[in-house]
């Protein structure tokens, strides 16, 4: 099967630019990147579906001249889902702006704490609570052994 160079270049350019944008911190930019990436991937479906043809409507064209309808149905679903995603991410961006005054994606605080522990070569916070004291140690309700005191 022939590869349509124009479509491939356009689609991969959209994908590349989309990747550049979604690695940003600003949620609006991430969303713009996501949309662009989505457009690029949808175009890739067209590349994969073969050469261009007549609309897949019976009666308006011969079956052998039609473009492949199956990828079109898949892309149609993707487009509508993208609308839902856009709306949801926008609502998140708005909420983030309401709460924090910006729409930047923050680093996770807990992850940073674990990273500090790893740098200090320490065990997790819960480890001391769960493991350290044992029957070997004189503690509550246990007795030291004979010989230890004599």
């Amino acid at each position: 099967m022939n590869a349509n160079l124009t479509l491939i270049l356009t689609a991969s350019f959209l994908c590349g630019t989309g990747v550049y944008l979604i690695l940003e911190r600003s949620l609006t930019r991430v969303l713009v990147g996501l949309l662009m990436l989505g457009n690029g991937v949808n175009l890739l479906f067209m590349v994969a579906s073969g050469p261009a043809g007549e609309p897949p409507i019976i009666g308006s064209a011969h079956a052998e001249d039609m473009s492949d309808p199956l990828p079109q149905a898949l892309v149609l679903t993707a487009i509508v889902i993208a609308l839902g995603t856009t709306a949801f991410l926008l609502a998140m961006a708005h909420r983030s702006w309401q709460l924090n005054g910006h729409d930047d994606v923050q680093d996770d605080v807990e992850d940073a704490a674990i990273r500090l522990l790893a740098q200090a070569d320490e065990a997790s916070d819960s480890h001391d609570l769960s493991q350290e004291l044992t029957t070997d140690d004189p503690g509550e309700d246990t007795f030291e052994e004979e010989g230890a005191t004599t």
Partner: protein
Amino acid sequence: MLALVAAHFALAALCPALVRFLGRRTFLVVAVVPLITFVWALSLTARVTDGETLTQDVEWLPSLHFDLALNLGVLQWLMTLIVSGIGVLVLAYCAWYFEDDDPSLGQFSGVFVAFAGAMLGLVLSDDLLLLYVFWELTTVFSYLLIGNDPARRASRLAAMQALIVTTLGGLAMLVGILMLGQLSGTHRASELVSHPPDGTVATVAVVLILVGALSKSALIPFHFWLPGAMAAPTPVSAYLHAASMVKAGVFLVALLAPAFADVPGWRATVLTLGVLTMLLGGWRALRQYDVKLLLAYGTVSQLGFLLVIFSVGTRNTALAGLAMLLAHALFKATLFLVVGIIDHNAGTRDLRELSGVARKMPVVFVAATVAAASMAGLPPLLGFVGKESVFGALVEDTNAAVVAGVVLGSVLTMAYSLRFMWGAFGTKPGVAETSVEPVAAGFAASPVILAALTLALGFLGPGLTHAFEPHLDQFPETDHHAELALWHGLELPLLLSAVAVGVGLLLFWKRRLFAQLQALTASTWSAERVYRAGMRAVDRSAVEVTGLTQRGSVAAYLAFILLVVLALPGAVMVINLTDDLDVVLWDSPAQGVVGALVVVAAIFTARSRRRLRAVILVGTTGYGTAMLFLLHGAPDLALTQILVETTSLVVFVLVLRRLPEYFTDRPLSGRRWLRMLLGLAVGLAVAGFMLLATNARSGDPVSVDYPEPALAYGGGHNIVSVILLDIRAWDTMGEISVLVAAATGVASLIFLDTRLSGIRRVREIPYPETVEKLPTSPGRRVWLPGPRTLSPDRRSIIFEVVTRLMFHTMVVLSIYLLFAGHNHVGGGFAAGMVTGLALMVRYLAGGRYELDEAAPVDAGILMGTGLFVATAAALAPIAFGGVVLQSAQIDFHLGPLGDPHLVTSVFFDLGVYLVVVGLILDLLRTFGSRLDRQILSEERAAESAAAGGVRL
């Protein structure tokens, strides 16, 4: 049999309720179930000892060879008697041990009974997988029992330790069981024992099962969890150490020994570890001040002893083993119960503080003496009978080293038995006499009964021998049949017993000297420390791995994922990339023009620092994509894409009014160059993948066969539409569900409470006091009542006029699209979007009141109705004998009006339409109306603040 096990669990579930009414007397009530079990097992004595095996078999998962298969031979019968008999006595004892106001009573009694039930199930299981299930149930219940007092750190730690160690062994055992099952096609212990598989795999499997047994029975190197487990209430310790849990390992070894004792590694492993455990347990028991801990180490020692005997796997050792198993159960339960009484009534278990207890509780003292004497192996008790036969059998069937080790272990046993009696009951010079509360008769009953049995069974050696015979017959015949008896004549076993007792006495007599010796050799190394180091290592590596991989930055995770895509599939792509790729520049030059436009728009989007510009530019790439769809021959896609882009653009603008105009300023740092590099690489990789993939394709697409059935079965000319509504209708079903979920998410993020309060009609607006209300004719609604709802500077007359012209047209168009979609371009999605856009125009021209006038219905209700209609349309075919989402065609004959052709999937499409309209209405209400209100209230607040400032 199954009913008895089930009865335990059923009763366990009732316990918390019973405790509320009966308090600690609950224990006496629940003891009934083990009692029935005990009586039942006792009634089977004659049949079982004649060699009969009772079986019960309920098919469960035949494909996995996993059945509820239970059987009861001599070994199971003995274990059932021990488990249920001691269970009854310990439960009865609990009624005196606990107080009524103990808050943990309900949970404790329930878990205890469930534990007894799990143990019963374990010993009755014939299917090894079923045995494993009960095995792990005992682990879980023992965890709950040991950690009965979660407020104490020591008991939490001990419970955790027991859980981890025994579960680790249990997992090894499960692997072993599955391997044996694969090898021989059955998980039945009875079949495995009669036809044991052999070979390396079988050896590995058996060793893995041994790991499970040894961890459960607390052999070196797993022994340390057992002394820790005495953090549990004393009745639990008595039951755990004497009758259950640790006996599970012994039981498993006894069960499998007839078949697998000759497997290489079996004897070497168990004999070595068993003897070492026996010595270590005895040695450490002699160092304890806490009499309960002393007994716990005594159990470790005795378990090593028991496993040594059972692992040899000959007729005589098996007999000795069963006798010793019974003897140990009786004396160890007695001793733990006695410790419980002392702890309860004297208030301490420290042998340095206890003095003169014997005189205060003479009955208990006598019972303890009998039990300790049995433990030490003194005649005429069952312990003596058992130990005699052990010595006899070991001398015959093993080597001198094992015998010497066991005799040495017995010396230590004698010494710590004496230490226990002296420590718990003796009168010590220089120690004040302990004050002891009188012991209730019922409290002392259980240990006394057990001690009496220890004594009585000592004289019943021949009877026991006869009873155990069916189990012994599984082993190869020997020329000498040993018999349990008090008197065998003056032979080597008697001499060994005498040596053990004599040297043990000497050790106790010279105990101060011995303590100094122990202090000298005390080492800091212990298995427990190794366990702790292991746990710490696990935790540390978890922290390191988490710290390394969880950087907390979403961008970093994405970058990692993309790098993997580049490194693995990307590398394969580069390797396979050849020169002879089949490429066309374009299908039509128009593609090239639009493509170039899209690329330019993308470049400017990435460079844009203003939000609005970025959004408009990305919209441009979207419209360009729609053009490319059209050029490719996909008009449905082009239409939907254009509608979606338009809607997105409006929604974006509605939100962007609230966000800062510019993106946060960021310098052109190294990171940004990295991102650019990554974007470039991904773009190139995508291009490479597509080139390779399209060139690799040689088959026909699946859709070449679609046109004919699309018309015949789907009843539509538009194949894409038929795919959406019929061939892949489940996808569409999922898709509209996602839309509803997304809309709900948006509404909850913006409204924060409920969206139901959102709708406000024009007639609800109060007139200002100075304005006189003009009478309007009823039933007539005002279109675009701008003067009342919008301030003059926000109105646009031209826009209002255009809206008046366009709205109806758009609605009619959308209805056309909805019904024409099956044969021409259109469909539920496109129709819904057009209706949504019509509403959007009304909102933009007339504000939020206009929107509510145009669609006075809640968006959630609209979407819910849509989902309901779609689901009903999907399910309806079932009523007519079809399958879900099947479509049918109905032709009407309306005479002069024509012959309309109805395809039922149009109802499904109607559901889709309603969901999409609901989605857009919801977006307008949230991002439009709601944000309008927020902005307005902020403006008013600012105004009043400013006014207040002036006044001050």
